[in-house]
């Protein structure tokens, strides 16, 4: 992953800021609860939800099992449809490819539709270093970019900003980037959205290069799919002459028909809508309609390392709906920034340490940023057993063991005695000592209860007598470990 967030404080330190920021906590609470309730209603409309969820899981598992085959197929199909396919083993290579492609067009600015893959690679910064300005066009990303900030939620990246702050950012920063905010801009959402429309419109209309990610790519047809709400995606995908899409290799589905599952589960899980306002699908290039040149950059950047992990690979099923964030009691209190990566919340807690390894304090602490309450698993539309992966990653942090890093087999050392271990333990304590998080965590389903550690691993034992953990019964680490591992083995 990019170095953007390196040097991040570990989870509990970063979370502390959020906990002490009442505005942020209020925004987060309002936002996560609103989406959560709406989502439940949208899901309840489909009485075959459980079967769609299972089919989604199976399709993704099958794809991952034959990922090499499907990657080659998508390459063939995109090439046959007039596109050019590039392969990037890591973030740096992806950024290099994109920068070179942009430079070859002679342009020095690009419009971007929100893409987690390019945030992950730190593309904007890499382009800037080459003298290319990347304009984010998703409203929330625009707010984040103008505010010199980082996203804090997958779906609502500016969830940590309220309307007054957004107005102030628009007033002071829009002029620096292009068309200034209208005179007398107030803080009503409609006026703010209108200001964004006007600010971005001139950029869309003159843009010659667009950059996107994709929600899905279909191996048999070479079709890419972008799901969005505002229409900035359509602008970036259809008006420029050159389109460059950077897509993680796990975004493949084998067949056109497979979309029938995800186009039902994704919108309902993410924005709680029957269908999001706009979905664009394109296959290579089309004469006379849309970009004349299309490049697909297939991104690895730690995904194959994740694939090599028997338990952890299920994280690659993720369709980035963000439902797990909205139900997570720890996310609600800690905020997205505490996770120190572009992937916040429960999915971030299992994805970042796999994509980046558990060497840094932040990554070693992430598997502990959870009370293992299991709500994330319950809502996940592709049934990723996040608690199972968290427990597995904790084992890796505490005990070390074999893993694959950048394609090479390595044996990780136990974190014992290192800064990483201390960070991890602080994160565990943080998650356990926040009464709200714990209360929510106690409404456990019987299924996940067995994954719930009643005491802290490793040195955490020493805390069990402290006043911070009154509800945690003393249990030797060894026993806890044995028990949770048995639980894990029995789960599948």
């Amino acid at each position, binding site marked *: 992953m990019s170095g953007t967030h390196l040097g991040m404080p570990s989870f509990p330190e970063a979370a502390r800021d959020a906990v002490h920021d009442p505005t942020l906590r209020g925004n987060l609470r*309002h936002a996560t609860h*609103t989406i959560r309730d709406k989502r439940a209603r949208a899901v309840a409309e*489909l*009485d*075959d939800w459980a*079967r*769609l969820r299972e*089919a989604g899981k199976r399709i993704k598992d*099958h794809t991952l*099992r*034959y990922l*090499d085959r499907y*990657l080659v197929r998508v390459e063939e199909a995109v090439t046959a*449809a007039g596109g050019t396919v590039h*392969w990037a*083993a890591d973030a740096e290579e992806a950024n290099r490819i994109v920068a070179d492609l942009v430079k070859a067009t002679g342009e020095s600015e690009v419009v971007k539709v929100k893409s987690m893959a390019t945030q992950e690679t730190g593309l904007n910064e890499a382009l800037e270093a080459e003298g290319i300005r990347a304009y984010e*066009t*998703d409203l929330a990303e625009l707010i984040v970019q103008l505010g010199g900030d980082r996203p804090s939620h997958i779906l*609502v990246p*500016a969830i940590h900003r*309220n309307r007054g702050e957004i107005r102030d950012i628009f007033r002071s920063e829009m002029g620096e980037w292009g068309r200034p905010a209208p005179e007398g801009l107030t803080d009503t*959402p*409609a006026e*703010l*959205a209108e200001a964004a*429309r006007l600010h*971005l419109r001139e950029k869309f*209309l003159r843009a010659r290069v667009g950059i996107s990610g994709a929600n899905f790519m279909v191996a048999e047809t070479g*079709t890419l799919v972008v799901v969005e*709400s*505002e*229409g*900035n995606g*359509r602008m970036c995908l*259809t*008006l420029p002459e050159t389109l460059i899409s950077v897509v993680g290799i796990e975004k493949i589905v084998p067949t*056109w028909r*497979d979309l*029938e599952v995800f*186009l039902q589960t994704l919108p309902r899980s993410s*924005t709680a*809508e*029957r*269908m999001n*306002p*706009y*979905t*664009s*699908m*394109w*296959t290579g290039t*089309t004469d*006379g*309609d849309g970009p004349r040149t299309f490049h697909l950059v*297939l991104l690895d950047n730690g995904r194959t*390392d994740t*694939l*090599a992990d028997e338990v952890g690979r299920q994280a690659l099923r993720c369709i980035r709906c963000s439902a797990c964030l909205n139900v997570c009691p720890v996310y609600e209190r800690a905020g997205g920034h505490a996770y120190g990566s572009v992937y916040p919340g429960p999915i971030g807690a299992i994805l970042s340490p796999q994509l980046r390894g558990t060497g840094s304090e932040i990554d070693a602490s992430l598997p502990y940023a959870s009370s293992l309450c299991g709500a994330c698993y319950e809502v996940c539309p592709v049934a990723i057993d996040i608690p199972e992966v968290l427990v597995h990653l904790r084992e890796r942090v505490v005990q070390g063991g074999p893993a*694959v890093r950048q*394609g090479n087999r390595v044996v990780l050392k136990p974190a014992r005695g290192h800064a990483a271990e201390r960070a991890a333990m602080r994160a565990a304590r943080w998650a356990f000592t926040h009464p709200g998080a714990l209360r929510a965590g106690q409404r456990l389903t019987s299924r996940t209860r067995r994954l719930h550690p009643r005491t802290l691993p490793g040195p955490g034992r020493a805390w069990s007598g402290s006043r911070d953990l009154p509800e945690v019964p003393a249990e030797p680490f060894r026993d806890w470990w044995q028990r949770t591992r048995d639980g894990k083995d029995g789960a599948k």
Partner: protein
Amino acid sequence: MSSRERVLGRVRRALADVPADGAPVLRDYLREHGRRGADETVELLAGNLADYRAIVHRCTDAQLPEVLMRLLAAHGSQSVVVPPELPPHWLKAVDATRVHDRAASTPQDLDRVDSVVTGCAVAVAETGTIVLDGSPDQGRRRITLVPDHHVCVVRVPDQVVSSVPQALERLDPVRPLTWISGPSATSDIELDRVEGVHGPRTLEVVLVEG
């Protein structure tokens, strides 16, 4: 070693011990939700379109020219983009200047046009979605994106399906497809929904019988 070989090699090594996955995906989910006659499906489409703030109108084929004339007049449109093969009688009563989309016309040209009228490829009742596939009665993607007012004509019940699975069956993945469910929207500011960001801020759907 090329990055292609490197990535594929890593994938293959990662999967070396994983057993084969021969079982086909069980597709025991529903092809559609609930049982409805053709009329009820059209009703559901109308209801769901309106629920996501599209403005829905219903008329017969004979009434269509007048309805379109009224809609464009009510919107105050001076000009309207016309896809290459829109049925000619649709716009015969319209006063607004017809603008034909030409290969050379720029996004700025389109930005000066008030409205666009198109047909569609298929409409999905359960989700309140219309899908455009770039056929000659719909034109290229940009003409339904840049103008601020989109009027989309759906022939009912022929072009209406119940569900997403049924819609995908009817569509050709080779064509550029745009699925539209209500006007563009954002909930990025404190989760308050605001309709109309970058796409057409007004979406009107005319359901035409016969």
